[in-house]
């Protein structure tokens, strides 16, 4: 089908501000938006820049605003976002500084991630074999450990847009993964971090994060679980 893709472009070496550029293309309904961007970059305008790697939704590189909604370009098919003769819009995710075209500065996002102690803590002497964990306990981490740190959630959150010091949904999901790990010993420290004024209480349950997640993680629900854990002082 024939479509127009309009892309919000920015070249820090030439432009004062972002501007839209339109590209006319013929695409297949089953093409990924990533394929469409590649078609532009490879055969129309090689100066277009965006991040991507795996191409199938596991590496988390290509989060962008597609038709006004945060999605992964590699997990969004043309037929779901544009019709014959229609226009598809692609912009960088919001709330992080635009470096160039669709590329944003990810450092603040990873700084928030690092702030929640995103690592397993158990200082007891390790047994010779694996620590045991029941399948039910393992399942408590099923959603939160599924996160790929793509930033779709955090950069769709109105609280994060208004106040960048909010740790944001992705970091809370990461904290959840450890708080609800029956083997981890740093629950109290993490609950303390979540209780700070940059933590869970900033969440106003707008549900944008849940809608944006390409891994279908019920983020708002996980944030609520963390809020309850903070209130009761335990997971």
């Amino acid at each position: 089908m024939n479509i127009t893709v309009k892309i919000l472009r920015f070249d820090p070496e030439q432009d004062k501000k972002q501007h839209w550029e339109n590209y006319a293309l013929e695409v297949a309904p089953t093409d990924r938006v990533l394929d469409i961007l590649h078609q532009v970059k490879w055969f129309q305008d090689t100066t277009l820049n965006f991040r991507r790697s795996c191409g199938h939704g596991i590496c988390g590189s290509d989060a962008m605003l597609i038709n006004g909604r945060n999605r992964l370009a590699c997990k969004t098919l043309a037929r779901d976002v544009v019709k014959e003769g229609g226009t598809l819009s692609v912009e960088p995710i919001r709330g992080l500084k635009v470096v160039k075209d669709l590329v944003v500065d990810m450092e603040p996002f990873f700084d928030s991630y690092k702030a929640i102690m995103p690592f397993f803590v158990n200082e007891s002497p390790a047994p010779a074999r694996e620590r045991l964990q029941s399948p039910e306990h393992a399942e408590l981490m099923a959603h939160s450990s599924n996160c790929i740190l793509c930033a779709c959630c955090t950069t769709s959150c109105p609280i994060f847009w208004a106040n960048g010091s909010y740790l944001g949904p992705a970091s809370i999901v990461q904290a959840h993964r450890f708080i609800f790990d029956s083997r981890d010993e740093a629950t109290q420290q993490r609950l303390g971090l979540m209780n700070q004024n940059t933590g869970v209480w900033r969440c106003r349950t707008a549900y944008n994060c849940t809608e944006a997640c390409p891994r279908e993680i019920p983020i708002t629900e996980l944030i609520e679980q963390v809020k309850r854990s903070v209130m009761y002082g335990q997971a």
Partner: protein
Amino acid sequence: MHHRYDVVVVGAGGAGLMAALYAAKGNVSVACVSKLYPTRSHTGAAQGGIGASLGNVGEDHWEWHMFDTIKGGDYLTDQDAAEVFSKDIVDAVIELEHMGLPFSREADGTIAQRKFGGHTREFGKAAVERACYAKDRTGHMILQTLYQQNVKNGTTFYNEFHVFDLLIEDGRCTGVVAYDLATGELHTFHAKAVILAAGGYGRVFKITSNAFTLTGDLMSIYYRKGLPLEDMEFYQFHPTGLSKLGILVTEGIRGEGGILRNVNEERFMERYAPTIKDLAPRDIVARSMITEIREGRGVGPDKDAIYIDLTHLPRETVEGKLAEITDLARTYLGLDPLKDMVLVQPTAHYAMGGIPTDIDGQCLSDGAGGKIEGLYAAGEQACVSLHGANRLGTNSLGDLVVFGRRAGISAAKYARQAEYGRLSEDPEAETREMLAGLRSNSGKDNPADIRKVLQETMMNNVGIFRNGPDMEKQVEIIKELKERYKNVGVADVSAKFNGDLIDAVELGFLLDCAEAMTASAVNRTESRGAHEREDYTERDDKNWLKHTMAYKDLNNEGNVLIGYKPVALKGYTRAFEPKARVY
């Protein structure tokens, strides 16, 4: 900019992150330099499991794992590497669990294990549950866990720093030169030891499960220095890539009971591997599928795919243990594995060959025991050679942790006693020259035009079934493409985040990998493991039980010099004599 670290790790996937952790434990300063943010690395795309003889489900022993690995590698596997690996991997998996990796669990709370291709009990009698898994996102969990541990450890990362040169003076590695994508500036990393762990080069093929960024960078850089690449002719096609897209569908689906079917809905693997059927190793399954397709029993609009049938499996398995691939099939093909058979076809997946190393990860400079001081490699980019002519499923994740760890330990040990080597006056000169050359080109071919031809022709001429005339033709095609590449156009003149320039550099790396691979494949006149020749259909142990070492001829452009290296036919305590490979 100039930096100094005792140990510099290139690449931040499983092998690089493991190496960085272990180098740091050796009390040396460590930096990890990667062209991607660490969590974007392709280790995260591995799905099905990591094989270790824990015996949590059925009886298992490291000797059985060692045997399966060697037989799976069609006896080209170095048996000392296989023995070290099969023992070490048991501890390594336990260590991952102690790092917090959220494995799936058996009812008794131990790490869950399932069957996988080519993994058997009692030396081939029946399939065994050896693959330790975290649903069907085991690689994702390994990558996340190792990154978390590096955050805990305070590892210094240089993210989106693209290594473009390796500094080697008089047989000693002294560092690397990297290009900072954000600024376009070059950085010299002066190091006592360097560990290369930057992954494979699947993008040399049209249909691949590999990330767009897997372009064989460090293999090519090594090769350009006149150093050898080992066993490049052995490239694995994974049997089950999503039709047309090549996206990986884990072998774990067959481990959980999924069945391959042809257009008659026949379970055809019964004819090719009567004992273990759908759980035969990947080279055999991929060839069987292509044979079915060639004989007219393919499925799909172009009759070029095969069905994978999960419809008889319980919903909990499909949506639980196989949630990832269920999502992929629904997203990309609009098929629901609960009720539809899914269309798959073989997809270029894994390089068995690469930068030759010894058992401690140190890089080899020839086939006779020569080594590069201070240079180590691990993971898919390296060839130790654990996988021989064909890798078993789950052994790539095992390889990363076992040999990433060994490389990290060795590099730190070396760095502790070594002084910094001398850098040349201007270590960035060659890189600067290469980039200036690309930037000044005015050719009308852009990188994508050349890459497209390369990927299509490699698929056709050096794919699953090979023959002399097609590969000879490919040798000439690569020469022509290299000629065109000399004037490849780079339209983007900017300094910051110039993806056009990166595309051009990466294409150069791919062309080298294709050249070494094709020359090695033409040269090997036998069929072994993943290297299947229509004109030499038998394995020939008398002449070919040896590793290929491919060298770029620095005096004659386009020419590849071939040498050899003996196969280690004995482990330290066990040895398995080459036998016919039937399953």
